[in-house]
């Protein structure tokens, strides 16, 4: 009972926002969570490669839109509950120039 009302409450609350200035968190998210499909080195897996060579021709805005809204017919989900537009654009831009490594 208590668990289910808590769950309802969590679902009603706005999803947590990763702030654009928290770049380390974004780098971690891309390497680790995007990496579960695209590979930690971003060379691809079930998802397409996200290397600079693979993304050279793609406009940043359309990449950011794919991140936020997903891609129908593929497993690429919409990340808009976890990422802002600024986050998505920052990620898209960095992917195109070679994504930073996580600091260990």
């Amino acid at each position, binding site marked *: 009972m208590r668990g289910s009302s808590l769950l309802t409450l969590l679902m009603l609350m706005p999803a947590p926002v990763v702030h654009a200035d928290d770049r380390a968190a974004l780098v971690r998210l891309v390497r*680790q*969570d995007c990496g*579960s499909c695209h590979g930690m080195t971003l060379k691809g*897996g079930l998802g397409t490669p996200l290397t600079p060579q693979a993304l050279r021709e793609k406009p940043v805005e359309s990449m950011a839109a794919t991140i936020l809204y*997903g891609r129908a017919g593929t*497993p690429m*989900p919409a990340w808009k509950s*976890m990422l802002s537009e600024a986050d998505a654009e920052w990620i898209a831009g960095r992917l195109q120039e070679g994504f930073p490594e996580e600091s260990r």
Partner: protein
Amino acid sequence: MLTRLIGFILLLLSGCAQLPLRGTGDLGLVIERAAGRVAIVESSSNRILGRVDGLGDLSHASVVFSRDGRYAYVFGRDGGLSKIDLLRQRIERRIMQAGNSIGGAISQDGRLIVAQNYEPGGIKAFDAETLELVADVPATWGSAGQRSKVVGLADLPGQRFAYALFDAGEIRITDLSNPQQPTTQIFAAGRQPYDGLVTPDGRYYLAGLFGEDGVALLDLWQTEQGSRKILADYGRGSERLPVFKMPHLRGWAVAGRNAYLPAVGRHEVLVVDTATWQEVARIPVKGQPVFVIARPDGRQVWVNFAVPDNGWVQVIDTLSGRVATTLQPGKAVLHMEFTPRGEAVWLSARDDNKVSVFDTRNLSRTATLDAEAPSGIFFTARAARIGF
């Protein structure tokens, strides 16, 4: 302390002298994926015995064990296949077998190691002793002869292997009893199979579908009947949530006569009766399930979740059919592995750089081990199980 010191000295000596005699039944590996390294662990005293590095890109790495439990075969994302000697704690052999790989399996007789690959799409079989290539079976499909990504590889009785083709929507069974002449059967499965499992008795192969609701089921004793769809309408009438991580399937899903399967894009575990393959329940859980793993005795089923709920783990009591306990074992819980008889479960918390050991009876933490961004945990007891 003293025993640790003695253990350490023995380890040092083992480099230059005879190995101390010991079995491997309580050993295992923890993947430290970002470091390209594995930790060799021992579950009787909850400790790390040593580490082996130089294994390449270990994102989504998985492991199978030789039937004597001495060697671990580690499949890396980058196509690396490494044979590790658990006793000598070193790489015995290592090859690069593909551009992009997702895991592997070992044959019933232990002589073949088979890798499943995304790029180039297909499976490859290697001599377990030498890692020499013995068969290459491309997952070619369609009129243009394109190759599909392969998922859900599982060993079957009779030197056969079942797997699913993500792009082609098929289940295939390749018979490698004569590796020089592999033969392959093809079955239509459904849209975008994402992973598969063989039941612990080796009779049924299931492929979870991503592109539609449901699971493809193949009776391996009666393959002429073809694959059929079960749980086909589990999501009917409701919008699917974005799936931030693909769920995983394996024979651990079966507890008693029921299989506990992750619902794709829903906060539910689906329960299906393996005698009739009818849905018997849907259990609401905290997030999108990734691993749904039964304790070996089948009384509990442990569930972890995709982001943003990956700090939680829930324990289902299979008798009541409900979540009995909700735990917060650490940040980014990626994997869980039971000890062979299930008195303990090991959980990796990637963002805490910790592996925790829980007592499964009172659900208390009994040990914590340091590991760098740990992901998969694999115990040698897998060596003796069909589908592992």
